[in-house]
C-alpha cells in the first residue's frame, strides 16, 4: 500500500517538474493530466487484476467474476481522483517553493541595488574634499573663529543634505542647487580668490526633477581640473535651461593644458552617465565638449515635475 502511495506521489511529482505551470499552456497541462490519469488508473487496475489472478492460481479458488469486475472498476474510478489530488498537491508545493525563491531573489536584487547606490554616493564624495575642508577649519579657528564656525555648519549641512537627498529617487532641481551652494561655499573658503562661480539658472527649471547628487560630482570635477590644477584659478559656470521640453544643465571650467593626468578622473563622469541611463534610459545623457580653453559637460534630461 505504502509502495503504491509513493508511486502515486512520485509520478505526480515528476509530471509537475516536467510540465511546470508557468511555462506550459493550460490545455497542454490538462491533456497531459488526462493522459496520465488514464494510464495510471489502467496500470493500477491491471495490477489489481494481476494480484487477483495470482491469488486465484496459488489458492486454487475461483473468485466470482462479478464482484471481481466490480472491485476492479472501483479501483479504476478511485485511482483517477487520487492521482489528480496528488498532482494538484505537487503543483501547490512547487508554487510555494518558487514564491519563496522569487521573494529571496527580489530581496537580493534590492540589496544589490542599495549597495551600488551607496557605493556611488561614497565615490561621489572625494576624501580630499573632507580632509582639506577640516584642515581649513582647523586653520581658521585661530585666525577667524567666526568663519571656522560658518564652515563647520556648512560642511555639516552639506553632508546631512547629501545623505537625505541621496535616499530619494529624484529631487527638484532647486534642492540639488541648494546642495551645490553649500559645496561651493566650502570650496570658496578653501580656494579663496582662485575660485569664482557663475550661476545662470532659468527660473522655469527649478521645479524640474533630477536624480539627487547628479550635479555635485560634475562640479567637483570642474573644480579639481579647472581650479585646483591651476595656479591662478578661474571661473566655474553652471547654466540650466529648458529647450523643446528638455532640461539642459551645463557645467563649464577652464582647462589646464599641461596639468598632470589624474588617476580615476573619468570615474565620476562614468557614474553620472550610468545613473542617467538607469533613470531615463536613452532619454538622458551626458556630453563633454572642449571648446578652446573651456571644458563643458552638458546633461540632457527629460523634464518631469512632482504631481
Amino acid at each position, binding site marked *: 500500500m505504502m509502495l503504491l502511495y509513493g508511486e502515486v506521489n512520485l509520478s505526480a511529482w515528476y509530471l509537475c517538474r516536467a510540465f511546470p505551470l508557468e511555462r506550459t499552456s493550460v490545455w497542454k497541462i490538462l491533456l497531459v493530466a488526462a493522459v496520465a490519469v488514464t494510464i495510471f488508473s489502467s496500470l493500477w487496475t491491471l495490477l489489481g487484476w494481476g494480484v487477483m489472478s495470482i491469488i486465484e492460481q496459488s489458492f486454487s479458488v475461483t473468485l466470482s467474476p462479478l464482484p471481481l469486475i466490480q472491485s476492479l472498476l472501483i479501483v479504476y474510478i478511485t485511482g483517477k481522483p487520487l492521482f489528480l489530488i496528488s498532482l494538484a498537491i505537487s503543483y501547490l508545493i512547487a508554487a510555494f517553493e518558487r514564491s519563496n525563491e522569487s521573494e529571496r531573489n527580489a530581496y537580493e536584487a534590492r540589496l544589490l541595488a542599495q549597495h551600488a547606490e551607496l557605493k556611488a554616493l561614497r565615490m561621489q564624495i572625494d576624501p*580630499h574634499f573632507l*580632509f582639506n575642508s577640516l*584642515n581649513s577649519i*582647523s586653520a581658521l579657528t585661530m585666525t577667524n573663529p567666526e568663519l571656522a564656525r560658518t564652515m563647520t555648519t556648512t560642511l555639516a549641512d552639506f553632508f546631512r543634505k547629501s545623505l537625505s537627498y541621496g535616499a530619494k529617487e529624484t529631487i527638484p532641481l532647486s534642492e540639488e542647487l541648494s546642495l551645490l551652494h553649500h559645496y561651493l561655499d566650502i570650496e570658496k573658503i578653501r580656494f579663496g580668490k582662485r575660485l569664482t562661480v557663475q550661476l545662470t539658472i532659468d527660473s522655469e527649471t527649478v521645479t524640474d526633477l533630477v536624480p539627487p547628487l547628479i550635479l555635485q560630482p560634475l562640479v567637483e570635477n570642474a573644480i579639481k581640473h579647472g581650479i*585646483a590644477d591651476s595656479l591662478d584659478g578661474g571661473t566655474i559656470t553652471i547654466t540650466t535651461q529648458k529647450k523643446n521640453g528638455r532640461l539642459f544643465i551645463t557645467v563649464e571650467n577652464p582647462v589646464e593644458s599641461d596639468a598632470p*593626468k589624474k588617476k580615476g578622473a573619468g570615474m565620476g563622469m562614468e557614474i553620472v552617465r550610468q545613473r542617467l541611463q538607469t533613470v531615463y534610459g536613452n532619454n538622458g545623457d551626458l556630453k563633454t565638449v572642449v571648446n578652446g580653453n573651456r571644458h563643458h559637460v552638458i546633461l540632457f534630461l527629460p523634464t518631469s515635475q512632482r504631481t
Partner: protein
Amino acid sequence: MKTTALTAIIVDDEELARSLIREYLSSHPEIKIVAECANGFEAVKAVTELKPELMFLDIQMPKLSGFEVIELLDESPEVIFVTAFDQYAVKAFDVHAVDYLLKPFGKERFDEALHHAVERIRSKEPIKVKAVVAEAKQSGQPLERILIKEGSKVLVIHADKLDYIEAQDDYISVRAEGKSHLKMQRLSALELLLDDRRFVRIHRSYILNIERLSKIELYAKDSRTAILKDGTQLPVSRSGYDRLKELL
C-alpha cells in the same frame, strides 16, 4: 645653549593650509620661515635661491606635485610631507621613515614631526626623500611629461613633444621642438618611466620616440642608422634594432 635658527619654507597651494603651519611654527623660535610658496614652481625657485634646511611640502598642488618638486631639486632640504589623502604615498613614507602630516593634523603631531626633522638636520643624517619619490613615481602610469630645471626655472615637456633623449655621462639631453635640455638623470631610469609602446632604447645612449622615425639604413654589419623625419641620424645597436623591430 644657543643655536642658530633653522631656515624653513612652507609650500601649499591653499592659503589657509599655509597659515596653519605658520601658526604652529610661531611657538618654535628655533625655526625661521624664509619663504611661503603657493605652487611647485615657486618652491623650486625658493629652494634653489634660499637653500632652506627644512621644507613643509604639500603633495597635491597645481602643475607640479610635491613629488615633482623633490625630483627637480639637485639637493633637497629635509622634508615634512603634508597630504590630505594618499594611501600609496603614506605607505612609501612609512617604509622609509620619512616624516609626513595628514590633514587635518594637531599641534602635538606637528611638534613630533618637527622634532624628528630637526634632529635629523642637526645630526646631518643623509636625506632619504629622493628614494621615496622614486618609489612613488614608479607605482604610477607611464610618464606623460618630463620636468627640467634650468637655473631656478622649471620647464615642462610633454611626452609627445619629445624627439629623442641622449645620455651624456650623468646627464641626459632631452631633444624637443628643436631644442636640447640637460637634466641630471640616468637614461636607464628614464627608460623605465616612459611609455614602452612609444619610446624605444635604440642604443646604449639613445631613447627614440618612434613617431619621429622615418627609416632605418644598414650602414655596416650589425650597425644601423635611424633617420628621423627632420633628417637627424642616430645610431642603432643590434639589440636596439631587435627592440625596434618588435615594436613596429
